[in-house]
């Protein structure tokens, strides 16, 4: 994907964020295109995960935070008063660094979100389970084990189950926070493959666990350093031809 046909899915404007008195994000502005994989990368503590959690308002669960600036999805301010947060989180799925299956079976994990949303019909749920596991490239491996405990799957399978669990809500945006950090290379490959397929339908924001992964998966990339957005480029050119000296040094491995 390239050229001028990009549409903006999420727009972040002058966003600053602090918790416990520490500034985690400084005046970040950025536009995230629809149906692409956007990568947030940089050294630990740069604010990538914080920004990710702000996009589906997961940090609402924390106390003692301060925020200024705006986040728009499809032009709507997601922090506007009266926003239905549950609905927002259904549209913006999240996959965490560690596979976190909920207690219960594989099927129960996938059905969890739709059931909370009030969906009860057996046949529709059945279909959702199939579709989600299919899209997460997991169906063939575990189609006979839908009713076994989710924690009995391997780490890679668990993480794809977590992706499937988010997809079950047919979100528009999928946030992934180092989803392969605990996985072996083969499982990592499988997760990445499923992401390539997913971007046709979803807008994906990925915090990769390595620069290599960033370079492999990115359609566009943002480099974060100590709460600051240092450089943002559409396309992969940041990896070969960074404008900012700090990004270049990080990418070529001179620090971080």
């Amino acid at each position, binding site marked *: 994907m390239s050229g001028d046909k990009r549409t903006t899915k999420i727009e972040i404007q002058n966003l600053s964020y602090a918790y416990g008195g520490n500034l985690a994000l400084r005046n970040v502005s950025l536009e995230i295109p629809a149906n692409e994989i956007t990568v947030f990368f940089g050294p630990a503590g740069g604010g990538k995960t914080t920004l990710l959690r702000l996009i589906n308002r997961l940090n609402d669960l924390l106390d003692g935070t301060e925020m200024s600036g705006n986040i728009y999805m499809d032009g709507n301010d997601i922090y506007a008063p009266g926003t239905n947060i549950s609905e927002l989180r259904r549209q913006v799925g999240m996959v965490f660094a560690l596979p976190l299956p909920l207690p219960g079976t594989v099927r129960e994990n996938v059905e969890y979100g739709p059931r909370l949303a009030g969906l009860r019909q057996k046949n529709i749920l059945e279909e959702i389970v199939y579709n989600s596991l299919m899209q997460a490239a997991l169906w063939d491996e575990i189609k006979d084990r839908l009713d076994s405990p989710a924690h009995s799957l391997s780490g890679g399978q668990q993480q794809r189950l977590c992706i499937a669990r988010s997809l079950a*809500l047919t979100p528009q945006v999928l946030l992934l926070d180092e989803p392969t950090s605990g996985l072996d290379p083969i499982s990592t490959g499988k997760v990445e493959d499923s992401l390539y397929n997913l971007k046709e339908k979803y807008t994906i924001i990925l915090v990769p666990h390595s620069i290599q992964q960033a370079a492999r998966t990115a359609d566009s990339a943002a480099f974060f350093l100590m709460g600051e957005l240092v450089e943002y480029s559409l396309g992969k050119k940041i990896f070969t031809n960074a404008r900012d000296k700090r990004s270049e040094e990080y990418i070529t491995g001179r620090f971080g």
Partner: protein
Amino acid sequence: MSRRHWAQRAGFSLLAFSALMVVIPILIVIGSIVMRGMSAMSWEFLTQMPRDGMKAGGIFPAIVGTILLMIGTAVVAIPVGVGSAIYLSEYARDNFFTRSIRLAIVNLAGIPSVVYGLFGLGLFVIFLQFGTSILSGSLTLAIMTLPIIISAAEEALRSVPTEFRTVSASLGGTKWQGIRKIVLPQALPGIITGVILGLLRAAGETAPILFTVAAFFLPKLPESVFDQTMALPYHLYVISTQVPGMPLEIQYGTALVLLVLVLTLNLGASILRSYFRRRRQW
């Protein structure tokens, strides 16, 4: 061997001795009550009304009364206790009010049982005019068991990993949905254990029911929550101190029934706890 090692030997022996001094009397108490109480045990003893001014017959109404009081206590104490625990573990922030609640719970746990009895008499029996009744007794016992249930349930809720709550929220769940679908089911074994321990306390206490429900001698079963009832611990007190010429056998028999009831519940709670701890997925 050096002096230091002799000192260590002597010290360890002293520690072992104190442990023995704790355990052996307990074994003697249980052993003697079991041995002497067994001879009173019979189907009649457990299922018949007392006769001859309690010097013959069974202790059926006392057993039923204690069970009814436990049920009454459970009905009140479980929702309030578990609700409080949910509040403390899931909703409360660390502020002045929360600290006040914790302080209140610590104090509830420390108030003497006979003071609960006075309170029950003042509020339920006299002020609310429930009379000496199962209702008054159950409410009094329920408030007394609250701190036990609250602390056990809160600990169980807190031991459920935070991540589950985050995941549930990220899938569009409201706070209450996360609690109901994930946190509560996972904490349930711990909560049940706490409830059992609370009810066990309620079953064995005498002082709180002295003036709120207990009947000295009432050879019939209660018909409503406004009736008095006999209860095992009070019955044991009565027949061992208030009735001259009481056959020792019946006294030991009553003590044994009460002991068995309480120890069975205790055992049940421990088994439940270890069973679920092994089965836990996190």
